[in-house]
């Protein structure tokens, strides 16, 4: 369970939002809404512990994510704006590295299957530099199939640059994760059809 208490975030000299309270139960999908620049990315990075909030606390299963960092990060899967791909490595090598660096024990075979499943079977040996925008995003998203026991997924505009088929596929993966008791927090400006509506948090309401 993810709890946000009284959160406010500052960027430069601008207070983006203040007094944000939110608690997300297992199985819930939360979509952050708001116009460009309202602070969605900032909030997500706060939730991951990459940015220190100006005020307020974030708790995971009752513990502050600061004090229990390692436990929290063992449960967290974050996919941000940037794809975290090294241009010289192939999709397979990149995926394997991301998993291992996050201490997920994955087999080579599982990585290959994840990449094939996400439609990169033909590009498995190409350096990532050669991939198209959408293909790069797919490599990052392949991680979702391999982070099985991670409960909390935080996704920043995951549908960007994906084609229609991939969007539908990803949406159903998110649904499946929630159905299995996971939590998904995401932002997107696109209207995507999920199997059930999920919760929507409008950040514009908290903006300063």
């Amino acid at each position, binding site marked *: 369970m993810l709890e946000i208490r009284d959160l406010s975030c500052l960027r430069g000299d601008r207070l983006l939002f203040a007094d944000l309270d939110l608690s997300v139960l297992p199985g819930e999908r939360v979509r952050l809404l708001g116009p460009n620049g309202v602070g969605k990315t900032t909030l997500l990075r706060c939730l991951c512990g990459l940015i220190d909030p100006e005020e307020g606390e974030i708790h995971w299963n009752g513990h502050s994510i600061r004090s229990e960092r390692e436990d929290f*990060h063992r449960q967290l899967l974050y996919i941000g704006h940037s794809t975290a791909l090294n241009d010289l490595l192939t999709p397979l090598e990149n995926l394997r590295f991301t998993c291992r660096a996050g201490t997920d024990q994955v087999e080579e075979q599982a990585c290959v299957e994840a990449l094939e499943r996400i439609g990169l079977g033909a590009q498995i040996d190409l350096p990532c530099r050669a991939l198209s925008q959408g293909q790069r995003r797919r490599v990052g998203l392949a991680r979702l199939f391999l982070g099985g026991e991670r409960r909390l997924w935080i996704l920043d505009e995951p549908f960007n640059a994906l084609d229609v088929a991939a969007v539908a596929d990803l949406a159903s993966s998110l649904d499946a994760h929630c159905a299995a008791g996971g939590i998904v927090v995401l932002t997107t400006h696109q209207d995507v059809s999920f199997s059930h509506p999920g919760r929507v948090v409008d950040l514009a309401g908290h903006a300063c």
Partner: protein
Amino acid sequence: MLGPFIAVLRRDLLLAWRGRADVLVTIGFFVVVACLFPFGVGAEPNQLREIAPGILWVDALLATLLSLHRLFAQDHADGSLEQLLLSPEPTVLWVSAKVLAYWLTTSLPLVIAAPGLGLLFDMEQGSLKVLCLSLLLGTPMLSLLGAVGAALTLGLRGGGMLLALLVLPLFVPVLIFGAGAVDAYLGGSGSDAHLLLLAGGSLAALVLAPWACAAALRIAAE
């Protein structure tokens, strides 16, 4: 526990292997810069032989410097750094792996190339051996201190230069003891003290630098 350490080490070595030309290019840079000095300073063999250890040490230092800012830059730009910071294991672990991979792929080749250059400057065997040993013991310290600098200047404008300015003063002691070792050997007082100091410095840096580096990286990712 060692998962991220091994993963990062493997990947960085793989990257070096993928761009194996880079390693050769590092050596090429080392050689070319050394060859510049005779043009600037003049081709008198005795003078050249005398200043050779100093030149090679300064050269090694510059080669380190030029490649340092690549240490974290790529990972920072493409977002891998963020992902690594979200790894459950302590940051120092994989930071050490990165520095180790860096040393193996840029400093070690220099140590190996140094004897050849020594011949170009007509250095004699004994002092050449001392020089290589001093490089071998001193470069880890360069890499470790340099990594702290690289982490501190990550994502700032004027990165490469600022980095150079930050770490060069820190490198000066290494340079003094490194080039001093050869002088001491030639002066007959033996180079052991200098070499021991270099080794000690490298060990101390090995213990302390990764922590500083990890802290700096956390700040840079904010």
